[in-house]
């Protein structure tokens, strides 16, 4: 039992913090988000050069084989500095979905270098965030597999060059068997990509598939276990991001209430604000504990993993939104301005809750898994 980062992990963590402080200064945030696709590719290239993009990719797939703790070390920094990039979707989720597959080998090599962006479409409009509720159909024809259907939300999918999409190859809409995973290029005939910006600057997509050719990844009839495990990895990574963001929001708030004066004294001298600040710190400690719990259970069996990740998601979401809201509240008016960083943290916490299903979804998921 050990809750401390190794020296190597700590170095990784420090390097993300340095990068974040340099390249994602709060004061530059609006400018960075407004910059065009070229600037985004350049920044992504910097992260590739630092080796972070290939870090979570398995060694067998040509990556660095970083484990959950290494990913956690990176994600905390991404959260602390609100680095708004598709790292979890492209570098954690996609490599976990493609791990060991022939179909994905070439794509992973290009993901590792930052040449290609990939995203996964796993969520459908009526699915309630359940990964097994798949109505999108895949049919095998003489020329290979063709797909019909829609994906309501593709996290970070707006700028993806490739999509991984779950589709039903057999069975009824809510059965666990009969689900396959397919790879398709953005330019595929019959694929419509609608792109959206979220309030936290992330750029997502909605897909419509009308007789689209897809390359199967792994077993076309039983991809669900791989999908669920991969999404749990992605969620655990986001929990660490949420923890980093909470920490930064709390530090900013503590600084503010120590220095901001009203009625002739620092507002941090008011007991009510002190206790609120304590509740924020306690929420942060709880969230950190849950992020550890989820992350360190990733390699256990499916039920333990799912229970730990679902539990983590519930508590970190609740804590994160609470901390974000109180950070804004304690800042008063300036808290809601674009200029200060706290409202950006709140927005990110709100969206982290939604990604891969909100707390409500994971609470029900947790309840359904026997301890």
């Amino acid at each position, binding site marked *: 039992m050990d809750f401390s980062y190794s020296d190597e992990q700590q170095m990784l963590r420090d390097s993300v913090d340095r990068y974040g402080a340099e390249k994602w200064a709060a004061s530059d945030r*609006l400018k960075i988000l407004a910059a065009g696709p070229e600037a985004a590719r350049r920044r992504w290239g910097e992260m590739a050069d630092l080796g972070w993009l290939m870090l979570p990719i398995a060694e067998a797939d040509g990556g660095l084989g970083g484990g959950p703790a290494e990913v956690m070390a990176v994600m905390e920094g991404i959260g602390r500095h609100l680095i708004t990039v598709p790292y979890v979707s492209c570098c954690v989720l996609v490599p976990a979905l493609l791990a060991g597959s022939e179909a994905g080998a070439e794509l992973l090599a290009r993901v590792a270098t930052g040449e290609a962006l990939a995203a996964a479409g796993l*969520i459908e*409009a*009526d*699915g*309630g*965030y*359940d990964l097994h*509720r798949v109505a999108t159909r895949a049919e095998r024809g003489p020329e290979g597999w063709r797909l019909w259907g829609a994906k*309501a*939300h593709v*996290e970070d999918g*707006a700028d993806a060059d490739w999509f991984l999409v779950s589709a039903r190859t057999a069975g009824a*809409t*809510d059965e666990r068997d009969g689900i396959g995973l397919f790879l398709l290029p953005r330019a595929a005939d019959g694929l419509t990509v*609608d*792109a*959206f*910006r*979220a*309030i936290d600057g*992330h*750029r*997502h997509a*909605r897909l419509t598939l009308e007789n689209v050719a897809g390359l199967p990844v792994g077993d076309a009839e039983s991809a669900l276990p791989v999908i669920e495990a991969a999404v749990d990895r992605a969620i655990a990574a986001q929990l660490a991001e949420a923890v980093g963001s909470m920490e930064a929001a709390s530090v900013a708030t503590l600084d503010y209430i120590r220095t901001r*004066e*009203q*009625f*002739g004294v620092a507002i941090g001298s*008011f007991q*009510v*604000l002190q206790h609120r600040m304590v509740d924020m710190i306690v929420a942060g400690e709880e969230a950190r504990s849950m992020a550890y719990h989820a992350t360190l259970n990733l390699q256990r069996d499916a039920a333990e993993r799912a229970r730990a990740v679902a539990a983590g998601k519930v508590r970190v979401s609740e804590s994160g939104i609470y901390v974000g*809201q109180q950070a*804004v*509240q304690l800042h*008063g*008016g300036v*808290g*809601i*301005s*674009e*200029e200060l960083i706290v*409202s*950006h943290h*709140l*927005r990110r916490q*709100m*969206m982290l809750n*939604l*990604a891969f299903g*909100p707390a*409500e979804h994971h609470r*029900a998921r947790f309840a359904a898994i026997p301890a």
Partner: protein
Amino acid sequence: MNLDFDAADLAFQSEVREFFAGGIPDGWRSKVRSGLRLEPEDLIYYQRRLNDRGWGAPTWPKEYGGTGWTPTQQYIFWSEAARADAPAQFHQGLELIGPIIFTYGTPEQKACYLPRILTLEDWWCQGYSEPGAGSDLAALRTRADRDGEHYVINGQKMWTSYAHVASHVFVLARTSQEAKRQQGISLILVDMNTPGLRVQKIPTMDEKYHTNELFFDDVRVPVGNLLGEEGRGWGYGKVLLDRERMVSAATAIFLTQTVRGIRDAATWRRIGNMPLIETPGFAAKLAQYEIEVIALQTMVLRLMDDAARGADSGPRGSMVKLRWSQLTQAGTALWVEALGPEAAHFAALGDTGASADMPYAMQGALYARVTSIYGGSSEIQHNIIARRALGL
């Protein structure tokens, strides 16, 4: 004790309901339900329609062009407006400066300003807060120095909502540097076109343009623009305080609109084969929300009843403000939850549109965060209630 309206009130209710029937454009609905303000031109259109009917100022006495309605009539009017998804009227002229003008203004000021508030020809904004004077408003530093027949105003105001739309601003400024804190503060009316006055947008997290900084750089206004007596500006706030409860009360009545927004979204979205609204978890959350809205609206009814009887309702206005902001926040958050994956699609990149409710539900949820900060933060409301009601 009874909840029933008498015959006259029932007749009035029919009249109001008829007025609103079909009179509210469909396009207003989502915005209104999420607690967001309509565009200024829409609010002006709405205000003029009301005023043409004689209903421009539901809380003003008749002699100034108001309706002279009883509190019960006001309640009926607002309930019917909420029912029809009509917006709340823009309140800075009607509820904030208007009553001060008709209570403390000169006959000339009344004649000049009041009719133009009713028609929204004049759009007023409020120059109170400053960078160093938010919750502690008495720390304000903007000064108005007498120079012959003018005041020369210098300083900076912050969180001036709708200054970019407004034609006039009412400003609290120091007319004496000797007097301390609350003393020596005066209330001055300023035309927004006066030279030296500059408006700068404050971008906010909801991505709507609604608030500003105001810079006063030797802004000269005639001394006739002083409202009431010099150095007494702080005291006029008390009039506001008494009317503030009506502003809170009126907005609280409009929460039924948010309930409808949530209900519609949750009816439309399906989880598997079931509308979200039929799932026990969501049904219980919505029920809880509706119940708390009923509780708040009954508190408002009691406030109205107190007002009708001329009874002192103590700090219940603060309580309504406190709970209203909590419920605005909870309701818009629940609405966002009801939208599911769509909630991540705030703005379309390219030519496809977002869903019908977006971005309003999300903007509403973000905007709602400020409701526990402005108009006296929730912490300040607690202080007020502790002092006034509990003597602590």
